[in-house]
């Protein structure tokens, strides 16, 4: 359970930074700490429900991204013969793609699974005073664990084989955290709105699909025409993907601005998402 506790203390730490910004956030952190057992149960249940009954269990967390990466590699690298430019930091397309795809899978999976999380737990919300804000958080933490496992197995093996790790790897936890902060905000937003507006789920599928190609995951940002790059800079996931590649592949470039922007966006999204969730929460039971 060390990862969960790690996630928790991470949450506590960062939320403590936010006291100056909002007391509510601090109270939420306290509630998370108070309900840590519940959170642990929720995360464990989610992991279990995904992997119990399957033969190779947790390895599916790895197989899914690997197969996706191989498929894309086949299409882009072999069929379309796209070659990475030197600023990619590696000429191994597979590894390069994986570094971009991993955070994307974490992010999109969290959001898509969180859309219906409140509806799926209808009984808890309508029949008891359940702290429903923990539900999206638990899904995200469970996905985070998945994400970590994937890095644990694939990332390390791949990097050890293909390239030596640079000191830049220390940025990885920072980017993971920033992505999580951004993700939880969006999750709270979509999960609460979906109760009142059930089309949210369908809309999100479309949006996430478009967002995937809007983010330079299967292509390099340098391949984008100069005049369109300004659009790219509006995409928070662009900075996340670049940040992951920076820390894992050791491609040094100017990333402070992106990181700062992500931090600001993460704070805004988590506060706004949390605020909307809180405002809509008293009506959940009625709408469900």
């Amino acid at each position, binding site marked *: 359970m060390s990862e969960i506790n790690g996630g928790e203390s991470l949450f506590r730490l960062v939320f403590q930074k936010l006291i100056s910004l909002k007391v509510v956030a601090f109270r939420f952190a306290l509630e998370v700490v*108070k*309900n840590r*057992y*519940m959170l642990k*149960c929720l995360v464990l*249940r989610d992991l*279990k*429900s995904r992997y119990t009954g399957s033969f190779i269990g947790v390895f599916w967390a790895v197989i899914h991204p690997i197969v996706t990466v191989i498929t894309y590699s086949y299409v882009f690298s072999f069929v379309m013969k796209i070659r990475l430019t030197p600023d990619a930091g590696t000429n191994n397309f597979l590894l390069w793609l994986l570094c971009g795809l991993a955070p994307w899978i974490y992010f999109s999976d969290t959001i898509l699974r969180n859309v219906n999380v409140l509806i799926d*737990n209808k*009984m*808890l*919300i*309508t*029949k*008891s*005073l*359940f*702290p429903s804000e923990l539900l999206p958080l638990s899904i995200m933490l469970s996905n985070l664990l998945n994400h970590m496992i994937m890095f644990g197995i694939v990332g390390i093996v791949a990097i050890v084989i293909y390239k030596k790790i640079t000191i830049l790897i220390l940025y990885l936890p920072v980017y993971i955290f920033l992505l999580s902060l951004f993700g939880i905000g969006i999750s709270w937003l979509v999960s609460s709105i979906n109760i*009142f*507006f*059930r089309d949210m789920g369908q809309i999100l599928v479309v949006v996430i699909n478009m967002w995937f190609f809007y983010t330079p995951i299967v292509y390099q940002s340098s391949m984008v025409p100069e005049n369109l790059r300004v659009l790219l800079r509006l995409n928070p996931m662009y900075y996340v993907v670049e940040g992951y590649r920076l820390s894992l592949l050791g491609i040094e470039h100017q990333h402070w601005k992106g990181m700062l922007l992500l931090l600001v966006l993460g704070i805004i999204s988590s506060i706004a998402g949390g605020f909307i969730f809180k405002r809509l929460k*008293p*009506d959940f*039971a*009625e709408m469900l």
Partner: protein
Amino acid sequence: MEKIVSLKGVGKKYKIYARPHHRLKELLHPHGKQYHNVFWALRNITFDLERGEAIGLLGRNGSGKSTLLQLICGILRLTEGTIETHGRISALLELGAGFNPEFTGRANVFMNGAIMGYTMEEMEEKMQTIIGYADIGDFIDQPTKIYSTGMYVRLAFACAVNVKPEILIIDEALSVGDIFFQQKSFNTIKEIIKGGTTCIVVSHDLEALRTLCTRAILLERGEMAYIGSQVEAINIYSHSVKRTKTAPVFIAPSSSPDAPHVSPENRALMSTDEIMSHNVIVKDIRRFGSGAMTIIGARVLNRDGLDTFHVTMMETLTFYILVRANEPVYDVNIMVSIYDRMGTFVFGGGNREAGHILPDLTAGQCIVVRIDIKFSVKPEEFSFGLVAKGPAHKGADTIISHDRVEMLGPIAVTFSHPETMKPFHGIARLPFEVQHSLVSNIPAGGNIP
């Protein structure tokens, strides 16, 4: 007295939309056009509850009982009025549905405690009591989705009552489980109320309300039609319901046309083997008493000589009780006790009460006692117990239990002929007689002296 729950002018409004997208249209309409119809599920609910008070909520389906409970719990948002509550609320809304089916029973108990504001350590302490009370064995570490309804309810109930709540809310959770669990839960609720917990009970079981509550509220279409003594509320309610519903009949389970297990001529005396081959006492039953005697076995037959716990109202069951004396005993009384589903001791009678004196027994001697009981009681389920008692030693005044077993049965008393008149109303038929005579007429409107 301290006010634990206080409601003032509470109302709950629902907006009813003809079509789902009207909600969105209304939200986005530039001039704030209204698309909904208003439905008041509750209006003008005002009452106070004091510490240790038990109140019943009565009303037909859709009268707003469950909504009111959800409002008090804080699950639904109020439209108007105020609700003040002091202390921890433990709620059994529709059978502990706050349980997560994927989690183990143990995890659910912990989470339930966490929702109520207990820490892990505090719950750890209560865990043993809860598990003991629920009595579901190793299932506590299985996900609750595989539980039977009975186990689910047991655990939910155990959880709700063993966390020492200041306010206990029970929605239709009284008439669940088997009769033994019902008796246990009734006793627990009574104890909890005695212990100072404020209790709000919703039940269609009017007798339960009569026993548990001291006050009741009758809800009609979301408004308080009556608040006051529970007896009065029940009277008003049952009066209004009777007009609409058909006569309540406890239909007997299809009576099997089996051949009698025992021929009539064989019934007066029963051998040890005959009793033991149809023993109704389970092997590991808990026993109470000094141990001077042991109730080895018992057999229950109906009028037709069938081994059954089903009996039609006003008919007789025959109890054969096989008892062994483990040491010399004197002046023994072998008794059958009958309890209803609320645990009320309905009847107890043995040879002493019937004026039948048993011989003194030496150690190792066995005796069979036959007791015939005519079930002139209401159609319901009853549990029964058997006890062998007597003076502590020869000539002593103190009567002690030599051996006692409880929680046997359940005996289902049925009333299967809706066309015939009920032989009585109420709990039991007391011996009664009716006479009449015609007297001189009194003209209508005339003075009655």
